[in-house]
């Protein structure tokens, strides 16, 4: 079928076992599939549907409701620029425009080399350091245009590979909720706090 890898299939079944109703495992399984492939492939959707006794349309219906579940391929790095109120006041639209220029794509598109996808996001709870940019949901706060250029250079050169896991990675340290730790990712010291990286602390906003 080509949905989950054998390892992840085992894990999927464990996750299903955590819930009194199989259907409740729908979103966790979507996360699992996304951490495996970087997005929710049609094959994964079909397999999730089979595992939960749902129709694929129902799985896709739920998955497509959530912005952080991607039912279409995304690049190696998913760059999100928050344009909600705090970030907007902090120059998010200008920054987003600069990102478009720098990456050569429009918001919502993926670069030809498959490296970057750019999207506009709602509030990511980084309002204390607007504008808030996320790369695969790791935070870069208060960047200006040069900051973005630097970030893109770093990403392209692979300098941030330690900071930024592949798209879809939900956590690098599995909490033990009856499951064993995720074997696909190396456990990293530091937990969530290490994911908030501020490579080039800069002045707030462009204006």
């Amino acid at each position: 079928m080509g949905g989950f890898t054998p390892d992840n299939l085992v894990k999927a079944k464990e996750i299903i076992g955590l819930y009194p109703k199989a259907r409740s495992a729908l979103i966790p399984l979507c996360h699992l599939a996304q951490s495996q492939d970087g997005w929710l492939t049609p094959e994964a959707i079909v397999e999730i549907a089979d595992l939960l006794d749902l129709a694929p349309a129902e799985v896709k219906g739920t998955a497509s409701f959530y912005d952080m579940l991607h039912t279409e391929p995304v690049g190696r790095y998913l760059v999100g620029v928050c344009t909600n109120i705090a970030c907007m006041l902090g120059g998010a639209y200008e920054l987003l425009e600069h990102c478009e220029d720098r990456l050569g794509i429009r918001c919502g598109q993926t670069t030809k080399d498959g490296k970057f996808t750019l999207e506009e996001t709602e509030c990511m709870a980084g309002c204390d350091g607007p504008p808030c940019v996320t790369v695969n949901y790791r935070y870069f706060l208060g960047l200006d245009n040069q900051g973005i250029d630097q970030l893109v250079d770093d990403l392209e050169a692979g300098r941030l590979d330690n900071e930024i896991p592949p798209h879809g990675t939900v956590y690098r340290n599995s909490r033990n909720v009856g499951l064993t730790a995720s074997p696909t990712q190396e456990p990293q010291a530091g937990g969530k706090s290490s994911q908030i990286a501020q490579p080039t602390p800069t002045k707030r906003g462009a204006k």
Partner: protein
Amino acid sequence: MTDDDKFLIKIDGADYEASPGELIIEACDKAGVHVPRFCYHPRMKPVGMCRMCLVEVSGPRGMSLQPSCYMPVQPDMEIVTESDKVKKAQDGVLEFLLINHPLDCPVCDKGGECPLQDQTLTYGPGESRFVEAKRHWAKPIALSELILLDRERCIQCARCTRFAEEVAGDPMIDFMARGDSTEVNIFDDNKFTSYFSGNTVQICPVGALTATPYRFASRPWDLEQAESTCVGCATGCRMVIQSSQDKLIRYLGIDSDPVNQSWLCDKGRFGYLANYAESRVVTPQVDHQEVSWKVAVDHVARAIKEALATTGPESIGIIGGSRLPNEDAYAWSKLARSVFGTNNVDAQLGDGLDPEVIVGLPKATIDETCASPLVVLVGPDIKEESPILFLRLKGAIDRGTTRVLEISPNPTSMTKYSAMSLFHRPGEAHLVVNSLVTPGPTKAGSGAGLPVGGVELADIDRARALIEDSPGVVFVLGRASMADSAQIVTQCASKVRENLPGARFLTVVRRANTHGALDCGLSPNLLPGRMTIDDARGYYEGHWGQVAQGPGMSTGEMLARAAAGSMAVLILLGADPVSDFPSRSLAKKALESGALVVSVTSHLDESAKLAGVILPTTTFGEKGGTTTNFEGRVSSLSRKVTGPGQAFDDWTVAVLLAKELGGDLGFSSQQDISEEMERVVPLYSNLKPHIWTSLAQSDGVVIPLYGDRVVPRWFDPIATPGIASLVHHPLRPGTGVDKESDPVRGESLPQVPARVEFSEVSRELSIPTLDAYSLRLMAPKVLYDRGVLTEPLSGVERPGSVLRVNHYDLDRIGAMSGDRVRVVSSAGAHEAQVEVDDSISKGTALVAFNVPRSEGQVLAGDLIGYGELVTDVRLEAL
């Protein structure tokens, strides 16, 4: 619920009675107060999605706006449906719904019967404050070959998605994305291939969902409509048939409470396409040359006269009639028995059930079946055989009113809803049923140890417990497979009759008016009114003059005699034995044997191609009368359009032939026939003209008629927009038919003979043991077969005529999935295509009956021999 539970509520200042659990909107409907609505549908659970139904409701904190479709009534509740506050809410909701609505009414199929249009006009703000660009989508997208979706018209009421999930159990469509990007869609290219997909079009309150055959076909104000009964299968769903310029253009389901509760299957809904199919015959033909009616009828009459003079009336036979209205069937029965002098009439084509099983068992209606604590399903996949019965039963299971015990050779659509399924060896259902109903020690404990019909004893014991613990049980009986004999079902019935005298039965057969045709005497041993020839011959001689001595031959016997060269005339009454008789080779041989084959038909089916004479007849929508569904419910058919070319009604053909033969049936209109039936046939007594008129507006009546049965019904104008915008029956107390109060019929009638009762005693059938090299064949019927009704429905998925076997059996002969093999049965050797399917038990093979065959595939009918209890086949690798 007793009346004591009821309480008073106030709607717009007036007092009304309400019952606990009732929704406010239901109470308002009953009170005749209309609350606008979109998402609420009386046959589905409420979702409170659209907010159109907001009303002011009293509560602990005073009056507040509440969705009336979602909130149940409470004692002393005060409800205000018209106030400034309500009006403001309605304005707001409609303005909101219209933000993204394209307002392309002039090119929208719904325009003119659209709840959004109508309610905007009645309740809307008149103007919108929105100037922003509306959303745009590619339009339309195909959810399937039949269903198109214009997404920007959708108001997200979730009627279609709820129907698919909750009612049909086919959640192939769902909402995708969120906010202003929300759309209904399918997953990838998994098309919305539900058998029930057309219902979503019927209930969509806007023009978002349209059906390909109706798209741009007409405007609602150009449509005329009449109530009728679907003849796609024997469920007899009530529907309106709509036409424009004398052409049938759309069918919609009527909310008939005891039958289809507003739903139709797609086969029925799009059945009108068959009226305009290329295979339609419109001119009489003799030896495939077009001739006049006179020449054709003369030709047939001459052949019959000659047969009567030489080989005798036994050499004349009539096969079919289960597609005819009751009246026409009665006319043909009278013709055969009193003019031809033969009892060789059989409405069934060997693919049905023993007539006594159909008409003689204690019956359960669909309602009674759905209310029975336990339903035992013996035989077919009812979703294929009777789709709406499937929906009704599934609904009852979901509501928890009934449980199903399934006894079938292989998994069916009911399996996942059944409390328990017993999968047995094909052809051995009666053994399983016997062990379930015969009293005695538990089977596992009895020491016998061996499985029964392939079912483990422990499972039998569990199923026995289900039956024993249930306070009532209804058996739904039908043919699981054309490859095994109807006698097996008869035996199932007799085992149950013997041991569970309280059990009742619903017999499921395919062709629409099988029950009615039997009731009207198109059965070798039954005269009209479910009476045997022995019992009722004298009675009918009193009315008809003469009646042939019986019994006559069944279809199988007639075909066998024809094949042996001793039939002179075979009349096919809307019947196609080559396709439908289980043994195709026998049917073909019979029709090619030299007997004069007369096909009285609306379509050039396979048998008509072999006929010497073709007499073209009208078909559904082109003729009136009544039809009887498998419950024994008589309901009306409507003649909405004129038949094409020179097509005649079937009863007129009978009258013409009788005249040519010097007889007189005494009928000059269909009404003459129904009057005679009411007068002569005790079963139809009391079906007087005033009931006929009410029948045309009702759910039909189950005969024999007792007491209060005709109940006028309520149409929710928004539930089925296409109908209710034209017809609106207010809900009022039943104006039933009371047998007692009807004037007693003429006392001078002779003693009325008794109706036949199922009396077959149970006996052993010697089912051959399956040898190690053979597979037992299953040939179930499917909804979309090669029949004339479904053929024009292009684009639906039909199973191919492949032989499906377990991989184990395929490995044994060294063949692979997709290979061609030789398959040998008692009926001959054929080449076939095989496919692995591990849902098929080892030792069996399945090929759907009468489905389109492509190069190198075998038709099930080619493998089935005549008169055998089961069909065993051998596979050989090529």
